[in-house]
């Protein structure tokens, strides 16, 4: 019996499943999903591995399908399952790869609401068991969301080269240090998604919530207005919550970044809940958006030179401050541009220092010397030791701070040494030693630790009088220079040739927990 499919625009089932949806069909279908489609437990996996082959030709590829009415597996490509359907008049089969239900009468896959529901649940169950994590599923609007969309018909189309999100910022008197950080934050994809999907639920009584102000800022940036925005409310809030930054003199952009993240983190209390639904009161174990995006863990291993016992501590960090050659801290045992420096494809203009060099220096073991003996738990006495810093947990957004401003007792100066930095950064060499094995990283697989540059803050001038500008990235490779109110298109070369003060990198592959 071949019937012409009725034109349907919504995913719908077909009448032929009604013969199947009788008696105990639900648990039966579940068993099929659990055993042969998405096998969660070791036992079902073993069974699946052994039994899922075509009953006619023995192959396991060729889009294997299982009959829904009896125990028969057949290739779809070779039409073995079709033969079975015709001979036995069993009209329904399930695709063992994707779980889709095929109706031989309609000659197409059908989407029965009840069966889809079971499929979704079984898939989620199996993946949870296997530790694969939640699968990303496309957004399906709720009834309320559909109403909202109908009542607000204005739409903005995002094309691959639209520049929405770009907006200049008026300088309110040496506030370029703030403007740069705002540009970097408004172009942090996860932060943008958080605010544009309205995820902040404010618990502060007064009007002084910085997170609310950030939310407003994102609205301004993505409004489509081309005129520069005047961030006077933001400035006022910053002065209120970070007194040390108040005043009209030039401040340090890095200090502003840390202060801003700190205040945002504190004001995110309303959005922070742990699994029990209680508010997380612990400032160190917060799960707010700031912590989710920016907080990493820095591991410090102190090794006693006598008993070789290792004492490990892990501290949270929002940025990595890197010393530069030419500073007064004794430094470079590595010659700039030395061995294998092209790990990250950085340009090595004869002898130029690279970001990788700085990171290597940051994570190399350091002898603490006889004047800085540490009390060793194993030896029960003060011994000489070596200390090494490595990354235990990498944040989603890694900010590198090149320490260009020297404020020692003797001198105040700016270090203008050129440091070359890459568009893509591989952090694997700087991870804590046991990281690779506990995270099952087979040799050659770097996907989990690759980072992409998306913002650069630069400082021009001297310590006394200088100006901050920033480069930010839109889409995959469109760069723009932000100089307060003036936004101009920039080339990748412009970005990579710049001096670099704050470098913002975004993780490229996100694992869903």
């Amino acid at each position: 019996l071949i019937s012409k499919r009725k034109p349907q625009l919504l995913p719908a089932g077909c009448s032929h499943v009604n013969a199947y949806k009788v008696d105990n069909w639900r648990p039966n279908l579940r068993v099929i999903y659990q055993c042969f489609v998405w096998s969660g437990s070791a036992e079902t996996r073993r069974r699946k591995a052994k039994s899922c082959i075509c009953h006619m030709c023995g192959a396991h590829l060729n889009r294997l399908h299982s009959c829904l009415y009896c125990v028969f597996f057949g290739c779809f490509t070779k039409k073995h399952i079709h033969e079975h359907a015709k001979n036995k008049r069993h009209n329904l089969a399930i695709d063992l790869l994707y779980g889709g239900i095929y109706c031989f009468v309609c000659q197409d896959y059908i989407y029965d609401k009840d069966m889809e529901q079971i499929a979704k649940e079984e898939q989620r169950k199996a993946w949870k068991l296997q530790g694969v994590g939640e699968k990303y599923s496309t957004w399906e609007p709720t009834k309320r969301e559909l109403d909202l969309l109908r009542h607000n018909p204005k739409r903005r189309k995002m094309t691959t080269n639209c520049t929405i999100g770009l907006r200049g910022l008026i300088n309110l008197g040496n506030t370029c240090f703030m403007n740069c950080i705002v540009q970097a934050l408004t172009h942090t994809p996860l932060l943008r998604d958080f605010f544009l999907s309205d995820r902040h639920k404010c618990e502060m009584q007064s009007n002084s919530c910085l997170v609310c102000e950030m939310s407003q800022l994102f609205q301004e940036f993505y409004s489509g207005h081309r005129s520069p925005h005047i961030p006077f409310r933001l400035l006022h809030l910053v002065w209120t919550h970070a007194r040390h930054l108040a005043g009209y003199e030039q401040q340090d952009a890095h200090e502003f970044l840390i202060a801003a993240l700190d205040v945002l983190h504190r004001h995110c209390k309303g959005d922070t809940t742990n699994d029990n639904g209680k508010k997380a009161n612990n400032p160190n174990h917060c799960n707010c958006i700031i912590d989710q995006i920016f907080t990493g863990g820095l591991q410090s291993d102190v090794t006693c030179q006598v008993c070789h016992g290792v004492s490990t501590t892990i501290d949270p960090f929002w940025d990595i401050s890197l010393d530069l050659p030419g500073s007064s801290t004794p430094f470079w045992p590595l010659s700039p541009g030395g061995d294998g420096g092209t790990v990250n494809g950085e340009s090595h203009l004869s002898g130029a220092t690279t970001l990788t060099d700085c990171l290597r220096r940051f994570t190399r073991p350091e002898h603490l010397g006889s004047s800085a003996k540490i009390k060793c738990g194993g030896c029960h006495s003060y011994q000489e030791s070596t200390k090494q810093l490595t990354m235990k947990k990498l944040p989603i957004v890694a900010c590198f701070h090149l320490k260009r401003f020297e404020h020692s007792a003797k001198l105040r100066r700016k270090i203008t040494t050129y440091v070359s930095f890459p568009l893509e950064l591989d952090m694997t060499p700087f991870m804590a030693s046991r990281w690779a094995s506990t995270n099952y990283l087979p040799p050659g697989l770097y996907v989990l630790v690759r980072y992409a540059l998306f913002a650069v803050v630069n400082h021009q001038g001297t310590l006394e009088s200088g100006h901050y500008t920033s480069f930010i990235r839109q889409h995959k490779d469109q760069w723009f220079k932000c100089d307060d109110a003036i936004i101009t298109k920039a080339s990748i070369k412009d970005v990579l040739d710049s001096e670099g003060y704050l470098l913002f990198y975004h993780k490229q592959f996100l694992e869903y927990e």
Partner: protein
Amino acid sequence: MNKDSQMRAAINQKLIEMGERERLKELLRAKLVECGWKDQMKAQCKDVIREKGLEHVTVEDLVVEITPKGRALVPDSVKKELLQRIRAFLAQHSTL
């Protein structure tokens, strides 16, 4: 079944048993999204649907049209990475 397909079946069984097949599928899925392959395929599917007409197109139409293009468009780097990962897995479970 010849020796080649016997080996294939044995490897496939091992991958399923250890749950590695699902993990590999996820890795592949992520990589194909990352490099834009998924978006390319989506666009191709839309073309086929437009061509055949929304009311008449079947999943089979799409499979027949898209599969060869899809296979050809997978970047070499992705293939390489998957292969490396499978090799590493087999090296670890060398009873095969």
